[in-house]
């Protein structure tokens, strides 16, 4: 059995390792951080899934939820009545809410998320409030529950009041938690819970707002036939059939759980990938350590060969050691991962709709552990195989042995391909997608190669600099980076990758904000009012102008539905199972505008924009323009005919052009655009964009408009920007936390590289001391060495992240790239300081050793 090591190999592997455990463990340390990251993320995912399973019903608060964006028709109402069970209803919409604090003279207005509830929702879990129990009584008492962030921000107290539409309500409690919703929900807008009957009195429902009508069901023991997921699912499809033509949203406990799991899955997969980068870097560090280790062991191997050990035995001896190392490293990483698992939820508190139940997940632990062992071993195979090429001749003729030089190309290629396939296989397992795994591994290898190339270039540059004018200490310190068997390139690569990750994360976050900022600067709108009725328009414009606010655009909006596509009724198309068009595009309520000209956010891709047409009833087919995504969804091309139902009136149109629309701009944009001359007489409402001179005006203006026209909503772009920033900060923090593992890996690999070259370093320093160098000078030389190492790594990482940032800015964000250099410099300084600290920590003993003691040390 040639694969199983014999007793001699085991014994010798053990005996040889015995005296050098500490340094051996350090060699394998590279993978610790990566494995820890993986184990922590996988455990976190398993914790979330566990909690979701445990609290599935609380996630929805009911057994079944249906929602529709208009009042229920007779058929649906009849169906709801027939289903029975326990029921609760809500009407949900966004509206301006006026907050009046007893502590302050000024009122504040905010676009808020209103939930007007009737009944005992939630059936499972509870709305947590302060004072507790406020959620029990608000319906009888006609009071409101208000989200915590807005109450804290505006200094509101229980007992203060808010105005929704035309109705004043007292605040009965502060919302702490709503089942199934995370704290991040508040970023969209403050959540307000009021009794349903109040909503109808607000005058908001019939005036153009987007409204969702929801019904929740609970099937108690009196409905034994509805206790299984399948039964509820069947009921749900029944509901969908009832409202065949409309968009009825149906959510069951199972589907809510699926949606949630998918989000968590995607998030943890992404973070897992960032963690995997650390693991790969660590494995690279281990491979480099093994390379140097084998090189140092070459004489021992040669001696063993002289004494009659077979190549298999020598391979086994060191293979066993390396495998043991991987094992130990992965074990240490797994344990560390378990500790990190405890704290990881802190990063996600705002995104989790429940308190996480934590426990040790054996599958997560095993997966992380085995991945660590496999990856570290895979990377070590090539240097390990070179043991076979160590000639016993080395014992009598001392020549330098460079491990990889003797391994045949064919074997190198085979091992290389094998390792890549293994990585892909492991990742495909973790990510459940071969395509993503292939792309990721490809991208990772490419970026490591680029990093390595850059670092080699920078190292060469540093080396070729003629530093005669520098002091001896500087020259010696720099020369030290290039001592034989140095691992400078690998160190610069691993540390540099950490910098690259953190740098590019930071830069792209900056750019997203910069991009939004840009769109709100200059002459761009910073305040948008919408849902304005025709009769309210004049008044609002007057109010705005009285506040020195410039009106930029008045956009008319007409809602309509698609009724026929190329003369086929939409209803028929929907029943056709071979259809290509998406359901959403067929049934949605289109909000359409009309203009003479395209705006700057629009570019024509195909066809021709026609800005004017004849009115309804003239018999002319109207030339319209579609966004290319909508055209794809409907599967239509130029000149295809679409018939729209504009509030009862059919309008014949054809696709005259297909546009590309940049929806990231703050001004209202539309998937479907009509020419002017057609819809002017149709029932319509308006959005008005304006630019107010300052924040105070923005606030006052909103308030005044809302006082006069409660149904009108406002988007304060400044506030939106703030929300986006908060959100991005939170997401970025999680990603950067994972990227930190790469930096950590770099530092550990540095420690291991110092440990490997320890003897060399000791000999150098003793030699210097023997010739009369002071301790201070020797320390100076070390400082220079680590300083340069850290600097080169940061330079590599920052340089590449700047390039990545620039490419991103140019091709994706369409921005002039202005990197935040100070932030990058600060990050670099921290990494350089850490490099110095690790260097010193590992060298501290050397200076205290007496030269005599050191001269007796052998090259171990």
């Amino acid at each position, binding site marked *: 059995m040639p694969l199983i090591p014999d007793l001699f190999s085991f014994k010798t592997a053990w005996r040889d390792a015995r005296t050098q455990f500490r340094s051996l463990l350090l060699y394998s340390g590279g993978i610790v951080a990566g494995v820890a990251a993986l184990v922590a993320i996988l455990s976190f995912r398993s914790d979330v899934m566990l909690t979701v399973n445990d609290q599935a019903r609380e996630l929805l608060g009911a057994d079944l939820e249906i929602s529709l964006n208009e009042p229920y028709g007779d058929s649906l109402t009849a169906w709801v009545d027939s289903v029975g069970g326990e029921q609760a209803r809500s009407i949900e919409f966004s509206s301006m809410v006026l907050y009046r604090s007893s502590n302050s003279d000024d009122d504040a207005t905010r676009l808020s998320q209103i939930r007007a509830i009737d009944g005992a929702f939630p059936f499972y879990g509870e709305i947590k409030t302060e004072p507790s129990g406020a959620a029990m009584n608000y319906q009888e008492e006609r009071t409101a529950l208000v989200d915590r962030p807005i109450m804290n921000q505006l200094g509101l107290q229980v007992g203060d009041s808010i105005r929704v539409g035309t109705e004043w309500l007292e605040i009965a409690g502060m919302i702490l938690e709503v089942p199934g919703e995370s704290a991040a929900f508040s970023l969209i807008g403050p959540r307000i819970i009021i009794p349903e009957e109040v909503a109808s009195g607000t005058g908001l429902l019939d005036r153009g707002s987007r409204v969702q009508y929801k019904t929740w069901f609970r099937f108690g023991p009196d409905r034994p036939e509805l206790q299984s997921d399948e039964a509820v699912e069947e009921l749900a499809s029944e509901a969908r059939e009832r409202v065949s033509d409309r968009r009825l949203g149906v959510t069951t406990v199972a589907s809510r759980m699926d949606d949630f799991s998918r989000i968590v899955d995607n998030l943890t997969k992404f973070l897992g990938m960032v963690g995997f980068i650390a693991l790969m870097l660590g494995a690279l560090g281990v491979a480099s350590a093994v390379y140097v280790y084998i090189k140092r062991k070459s004489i*021992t191997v040669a*001696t*063993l060969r*002289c004494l*009659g*050990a077979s190549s298999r035995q020598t391979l086994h001896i060191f293979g066993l050691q390396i495998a043991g190392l991987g094992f130990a490293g992965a074990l240490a990483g797994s344990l560390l991962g378990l500790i990190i698992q405890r704290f990881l939820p802190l990063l996600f508190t705002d995104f989790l709709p429940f308190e996480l139940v934590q426990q040790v997940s054996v599958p997560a632990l095993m997966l992380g552990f085995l991945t660590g062992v496999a990856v570290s071993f895979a990377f070590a195979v090539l240097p390990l195989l070179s043991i076979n090429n160590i000639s*016993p001749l080395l014992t*009598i003729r001392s020549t330098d042995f460079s491990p990889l030089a003797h391994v045949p190309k064919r074997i190198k290629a085979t091992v290389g391909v094998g390792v890549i396939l293994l990585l892909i296989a492991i990742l495909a397992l973790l990510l459940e997608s071969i395509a993503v795994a292939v792309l990721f591994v490809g991208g990772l290898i490419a970026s490591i190669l680029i990093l390595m190339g850059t670092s080699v270039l920078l190292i060469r540059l540093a080396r070729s600099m003629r530093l005669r004018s520098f002091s001896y200490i500087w020259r010696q310190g720099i020369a030290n980076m290039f001592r034989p068997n140095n691992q400078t390139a690998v160190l610069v690569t691993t540390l540099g990758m950490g910098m690259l990750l953190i740098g590019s994360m930071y830069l792209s976050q900056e750019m997203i904000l910069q991009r939004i900022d840009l769109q709100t600067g200059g002459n761009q709108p910073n305040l948008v009012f919408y849902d304005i009725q025709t009769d309210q328009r004049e008044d609002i414009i007057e109010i705005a102008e009285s506040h020195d606010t410039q009106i930029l655009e008045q956009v008319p909006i007409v809602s309509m539905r698609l009724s026929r596509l190329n003369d086929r009724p939409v209803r028929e198309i929907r029943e056709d199972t071979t259809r290509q068009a998406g359901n959403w595009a067929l049934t949605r309520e289109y909000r359409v505008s009309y203009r003479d000209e395209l705006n700057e956010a629009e570019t024509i891709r195909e066809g021709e924009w026609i800005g004017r047409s004849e009115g309804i009833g003239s018999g002319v087919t109207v030339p319209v323009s579609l966004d290319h995504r909508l055209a794809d969804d409907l599967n239509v091309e130029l000149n295809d005919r679409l018939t729209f139902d504009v509030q009862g009136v059919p309008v014949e149109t054809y696709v005259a052009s297909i546009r590309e629309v940049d929806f990231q701009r703050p001004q209202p944009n539309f998937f479907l655009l009509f020419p002017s001359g057609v819809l002017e007489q149709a029932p319509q409402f308006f959005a008005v964009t304006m630019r107010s001179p300052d924040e105070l005006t923005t606030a006052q203006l909103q308030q005044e408009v809302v006082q006069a026209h409660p149904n009108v909503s406002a988007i304060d772009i400044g506030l939106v920007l703030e929300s986006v920033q908060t959100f991005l900060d939170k997401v970025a923090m999680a990603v950067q936390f994972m990227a930190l593992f790469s930096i950590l890996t770099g530092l550990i690999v540095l420690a291991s590289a110092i440990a490997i070259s320890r003897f060399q370093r000791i000999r150098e320093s003793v030699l210097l001391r023997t010739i009369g160098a002071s301790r201070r000078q020797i320390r100076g030389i070390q400082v220079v060495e680590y300083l340069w190492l850290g600097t080169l790594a940061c330079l590599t990482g920052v340089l590449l992240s700047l390039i990545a940032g620039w490419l991103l800015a140019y091709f994706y964000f369409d921005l002039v790239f202005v990197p935040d250099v100070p932030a990058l410099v600060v990050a670099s300084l921290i990494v350089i300081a850490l490099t110095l600290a690790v260097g010193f920590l590992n060298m501290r003993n050397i200076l205290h050793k007496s030269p005599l003691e050191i001269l007796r040390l052998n090259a*171990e």
Partner: protein
Amino acid sequence: MLRVEDLTKTYQSGDRPLTVLDRVTFEIEPGTSCAIVGPSGSGKTTLLGLCAGLDRATSGDVYLKDHSLRILDEDALAVIRNRHIGFVFQSFQLIPTLTALENVMVPMELRGAGYEEVSARAERLLVEVGLAGRIHHYPTQLSGGEQQRVGMARAFIHEPDILFADEPTGNLDEETGSQIEEILFDLNQKEGTTLVIVTHDPELAAQCDRIIRLKGGRVATDSGPAAGSAAPAGFNRNSRSAKKMVDS
């Protein structure tokens, strides 16, 4: 015991071939000792390496106990080395992570022998070479002479048929060197091993039954094959042992 036939070794140095050994032929009888001498660069080490199967010849062949080394693969050569060959190196080549005792035991353990059966013999050998008190020391804790003694104990533990030594005293001072020589010949005589020593120490060479002198990769002079265990050499060795006993 050892037959060398038309042995040639050529290195490709740059674009010119460099012939280091040129059709060397000789045969060494079992139980005899043979010194290979010659100026530095004459090919001694190369020859030794080829004889011990550490390297491959360009042409010609080496027969060790009638095994042709040319036809054996690396692992078969390893088996030959373990069964029949002992080595003493100029730079000792002890395994730094093993103790003296463990270093000595390696050749036997490679054969699969258990700790108990080998350790007694290894300890005895270490005592015999004068390291009674240093059995569990690591190489770094031993002086050069002591390391070479461990090296010799290791070379003899598996009772090899033939022992190769490449300048065994080259890294030692004269006095330590001659102690090592003494032990070498002593053990050699006790075990009846064939001895091949590369040296440029004329005194050491003179103690051997036979001297082969290399020059420019060829055999310059050869004192000729000695009979079985030649009387003068045997006498020599005995006298040395006697002298050692007197000394101690």
